[in-house]
């Protein structure tokens, strides 16, 4: 018997002419939970994936002036209340198995948007040691491992404060918490859960590029 991974209702799969002989793709969510996730569709900023009607959003224009260091971020979902609660139960409560909610979308998006570049290395955003001790797993690594590509953990992180509790300005201003443990000379795809101001991704990119990485892309679950 199958249950919705998030709300635990029993999943009902009706038998139809199209599925009676096939092994079904296993959906982990019930339809009511699945419907609450909103995919970003239509026009978006070509760099950061924000829903935007012209090519480049205001933030990204600003980043350009300051010296942009990522090629592109692609986000899959709008950061709405549902995904916020799911992600928070997943990473803050530590409900590891909830990553399965995003497996199919993450894989599909990776293949569609980034698979052209087969020499790309997947790099997760690291956790500081104290955070790792608290949580037991790195959510970014948990996402990266679901992709069929080599994962390289080449970044380290100094101990930090929680991002989610900082306002925009404090986030933009803080010093770069990342350092390189092993230089990479190939293009990189950073995987993370949420893209908010884009500071985290750009700080990681800055370190990677300082150590010889030619291009940095990002794939994130949600764009807030």
């Amino acid at each position, binding site marked *: *018997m199958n249950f919705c991974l998030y709300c635990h209702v029993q999943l009902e799969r009706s038998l139809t002419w199209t599925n009676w002989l096939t092994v079904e793709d296993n959906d982990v969510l019930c339809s009511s939970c699945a419907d609450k996730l909103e995919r970003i569709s239509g026009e978006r900023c070509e760099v950061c994936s924000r829903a935007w009607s012209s090519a480049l959003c205001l933030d990204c224009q600003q980043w350009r002036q300051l010296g942009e260091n990522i090629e592109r971020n692609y986000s899959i979902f709008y950061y709405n209340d549902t995904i916020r609660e799911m992600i928070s139960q997943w990473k803050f409560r530590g409900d590891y*198995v909830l990553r399965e909610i995003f497996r199919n979308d993450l894989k599909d998006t990776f293949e569609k948007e980034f698979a052209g570049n087969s020499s790309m290395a997947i790099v997760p955003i690291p956790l500081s040691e104290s955070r790792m001790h608290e949580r*037991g*797993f790195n959510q970014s*690594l948990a996402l990266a491992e679901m992709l069929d590509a080599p994962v390289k953990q080449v970044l380290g992180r100094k101990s930090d404060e929680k991002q989610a509790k900082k306002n925009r300005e404090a986030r933009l201003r803080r010093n770069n918490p990342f350092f390189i443990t092993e230089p990479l000379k190939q293009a990189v795809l950073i995987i993370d859960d949420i893209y908010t101001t884009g500071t985290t991704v750009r700080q990681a990119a800055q370190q990677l590029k300082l150590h010889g990485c030619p291009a940095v892309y990002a794939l994130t679950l949600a764009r807030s």
Partner: protein
Amino acid sequence: MNIDKRILMSPAFLAQALSGKRLLEEEVPIPQKCFDVLRSTKQLIPTPAIENQKGSVKCIRCGNVALQYFSEYPCGVCQQNHKYCRNCIQMGRVSECKPLYTWGGAAVNWPRHSQPLTWTGNLTTAQRKAAAQLQEAVEEKIPAYLCWAVCGAGKTEMLFPPLTSALKRGYRIALASPRVDVIRELLPRMGQAFQGVSIEALYGGSEHRTGMAQLILATTHQLMRYHQAFDVLIIDEVDAFPYYLDKSLMYAAKQAVKKQSTTLYLTATPRKNFRLQMKLGKLPHVFVPLRYHGHLLPVPKFKLAFRLTNQLANQKLPNAFRQWLIHRQNPKRQLLLFVPKIAMIKELKGVITSLLMEVDAISAPDQLEAVYAADEEREVKINQFRQKELHVLITTTILERGVTFPSVDVAVLNAGHDVFNEAALVQIAGRAGRSADDPTGEVVFFHDGKTDAMEKARQMIVEMNARGRKI
């Protein structure tokens, strides 16, 4: 649990804060160094949080054994896969990696109060009789005792004598309810009645939680953080959702009491298993069939409205409901309107407002509000209704029990819906006629097909009234 970490640590304080608890390391509200000392001196004793034997897994905190509620994560600290419990994860993750800690230090001597009760009211004869039974159960340490009292019998007051007796003996007590509204309402009343006793209310989102008072008021979930802590545990509304369906809450209640202790169950609508146990003589109990003001329970009227479900789905209100609104016996009474689903509230609020305006039940749209479980302004709205700032309140079953409004009429739209089970309907009917000044109140169930639950609910009320009349 947030205790200010700068607080001065004294042995007595630690014992009081930690005895009777079973906590994860991050829940133990003390600095790391202090924690390490307590652990090395065996004052904090680790026990495995997940029991994993030959394929059967059990969460020690919530008692969960259902495999679907367990999962695994690869631990980045010890590089192993750990099982964790998803059933109680909202209270912090319990996993194989981290033990639960119980207190092994000095025992706490809770104060023996010589005169704890500062309440000066009087109990009615019926209340006094039941209270004496409950008191005896506490004094004799009878493991389980049920108090079956109709809605509005004045259960809280009946608890005063057994509580007084327990406090005189220096017992530790918990009063738990599945409903958070009940706990919020109880806190000031208990504070008033036992002014010299340390009392604390624990529920998801409550402030300043230390859980170190002698008398703990808590939602049943919070009991999971206690282990062999209480001499007396009172479970109010024991038949309420989610308690009667959630095995982990019953498990928590069993874990939270000492080996020699009394658990008092309070209910207005005992479910089958309790009724059976009473009939078999396995559960000692006392029955209070009369309300505190001595009047009988209002008996619900059934009003058939054809195609009601259909009409509601199309955001139309049945004519029967409209007619009833116009011809209410006492239009000054506030109106509590129950609907089966949250979605319906949103759909119907507008239509109901305009109908009520049309029949002059309210004079302005702001005299009506709707409230549901996830509503952030839930407390505010309930309070406004209590203060009579609102004339009509539309609600889901969250207000079926525990909350008291002195003088209301009660209507249920689509009483045949599944969410309205027998117990819920009896409770809903019990919202009317709570005040001695206005002890009647109308109760009407609108339906398009009677259900068993409706019939049984009415039958139960009629039977309780029959027993009440004999007194």
